[in-house]
């Protein structure tokens, strides 16, 4: 299967003289992939996603979208193919949920064009796909954490991109919402063919929905490959300095990771 988005030996520092936050990383997302990016705080997951989405340019190395370097695309062109769900969304002003979702249409509209009926239909489809149609006219700031996150995902879907990069989409959510978001992501990947990369701290979510994993530490890739091969007690120890049990349910094939203790 062809690579949709790939980073080729990319490194990045936020300012001249600052340490490398991403250090010689190579990753490939093939068409239809559902990849998880795991790693401790400060390991460079968010920055890697920014490099992959093109909102930051690598200090060295290059990112390819299809066969073309990502920095040859205008922001608008890139945004029609890659959508991002950021870790947090804080609004400066009060917007309704539907207004937020319609903002996803930005890269498809001309300078002075207003969203037409087609754009509104796409926005409502995105609300339906995330189970938030009933929230359309509510103010974003009045919604619960899980509802907000689903609206932000809907806005990314309204972008009609075939690639979705999510930065800790379940970080601040309770167990119920975590399950809801992960099954939503799985459905989007399987039914709508959206290629995804998800950064997360939730090993069990990653184990249950991601088919491949990229493990990052100190800006480098520690291991990558199919989930079952990569998610081993040895790798978890190298990644987090934590001793863990990794159990595989013999009937369902589900993997669970149970942290045991921290190794100094």
């Amino acid at each position, binding site marked *: 299967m062809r690579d949709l988005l790939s980073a080729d030996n990319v490194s990045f520092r*936020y*300012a001249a003289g600052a340490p490398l936050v991403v250090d010689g990383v190579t990753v490939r997302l093939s068409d239809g992939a559902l990849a998880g990016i795991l790693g401790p705080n400060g390991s460079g997951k968010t920055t890697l996603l*920014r490099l992959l*989405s093109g*909102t930051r340019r690598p200090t060295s190395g290059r990112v390819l979208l299809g066969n073309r370097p990502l920095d040859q695309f*205008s*922001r*608008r062109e*890139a*945004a*029609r193919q*890659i*959508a*991002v769900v*950021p870790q947090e*969304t*804080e*609004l*400066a*002003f*009060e*917007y*309704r949920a539907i*207004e*937020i979702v*319609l*903002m*996803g249409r*930005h*890269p498809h*509209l001309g*300078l*002075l064009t*207003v*969203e*037409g*009926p087609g754009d*509104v239909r796409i926005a409502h489809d995105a609300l339906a796909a995330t189970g938030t149609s009933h929230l359309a006219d509510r103010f974003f700031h009045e919604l619960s954490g899980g509802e907000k996150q689903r609206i932000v995902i809907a806005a990314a879907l309204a*972008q009609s991109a075939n690639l979705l990069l999510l930065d800790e989409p379940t970080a601040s959510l309770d167990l119920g919402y975590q399950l809801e978001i992960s099954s939503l992501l799985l459905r989007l990947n399987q039914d709508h063919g959206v290629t995804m990369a998800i950064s997360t701290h939730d090993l069990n979510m990653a184990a249950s929905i991601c088919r491949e994993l990229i493990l990052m530490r100190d800006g480098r890739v520690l291991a990558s490959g199919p989930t079952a091969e990569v998610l081993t007690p040895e790798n978890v120890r190298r990644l987090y300095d934590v001793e863990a049990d990794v159990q595989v349910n013999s009937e369902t094939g589900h993997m669970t990771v149970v942290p045991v203790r921290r190794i100094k």
Partner: protein
Amino acid sequence: MSIRRRIIIVVSGFAAFAVAVMIWAPTVGSTPISLARAFDRSIAWDDNVDAQIFFVARLPRVLAGGLVGATLAAAGVVLQALLRNPLATPFTLGVSAGASLGAMLAVTMRLELSVLGVTSIPLASFAGSMIATGIVYALASSQRRGLSTNVLLLAGVTLNAFFSALILFVQYLADFAEALRAIRWMMGGLDVASYFPIVAALPFIIISFAAFAMMTRTLNLLSVGAEAAASRGVEIVRAQRLAFISASLATGAAVSLGGPIGFIGIIVPHLVRLLVGSDHRIVLPASALFGAAFLVLCDLAARTLMSPLEIPVGVVTALIGGPFFLWLLVKRS
């Protein structure tokens, strides 16, 4: 209702209000005049007192009020979105302090020059505002690629304080009459006395408004966050530069025309948002139109409430704006 229709209907409503206010305002004043007589071409100009009062005394003032009000309100909207801070004003980034210092220096150094009917005080204040803008811009873009809105805000606030100190110092050295004249300018006033200063400010304001018109949807995205906006196709650095420079240019031109009239740039956008929501495609034009009407009405109050004494229009807007601002703070917390 489609989004386009909603924008057209709401903005048309605000436009109708602004036009009505601007037609009515020149007829009100210490001497009542008749619009019919003022526009009656059969009466000779020299004999038509109504026409003289309308076209010479009141219309320039109303037009200046409309232009300044529209510009300050629109610039407020743009800067609030750029800084992602609803409490920002057109004067937050040092433009008005630079303008005031320029005006102060023009008064105390007794500069007597005139370009195309524009006198030294507006010229010096416009120059001061552009110098302040240049300093803030250089500071905010020096640290890294792009524009840091945090540095922008800090540099603006610091420059405001520093320029205020310079203003006080120059004022301390000035003689009494000069100091009074400069202070009077800083209170704001729309007594332009001719059409020249309006025409001179117009090109800068038109250019800025053309830039505003192209950035309304981008301002919505910036309100959601720079990173999110970038991932949705906004060229962040370009958008931020355009917003900052056009808002500063417009503010500098408006201040050179009417002085640093406070609170318009914050009250009007907030009132408009309360009425129509936060979509900048509506908020920006509606604020400009409402700002025009609001300042013309404030100026009407300024010249009639204590007639024949005139209250500086900046005092009127501050008397309304101060309590409103406090109410806003309490409501937000």
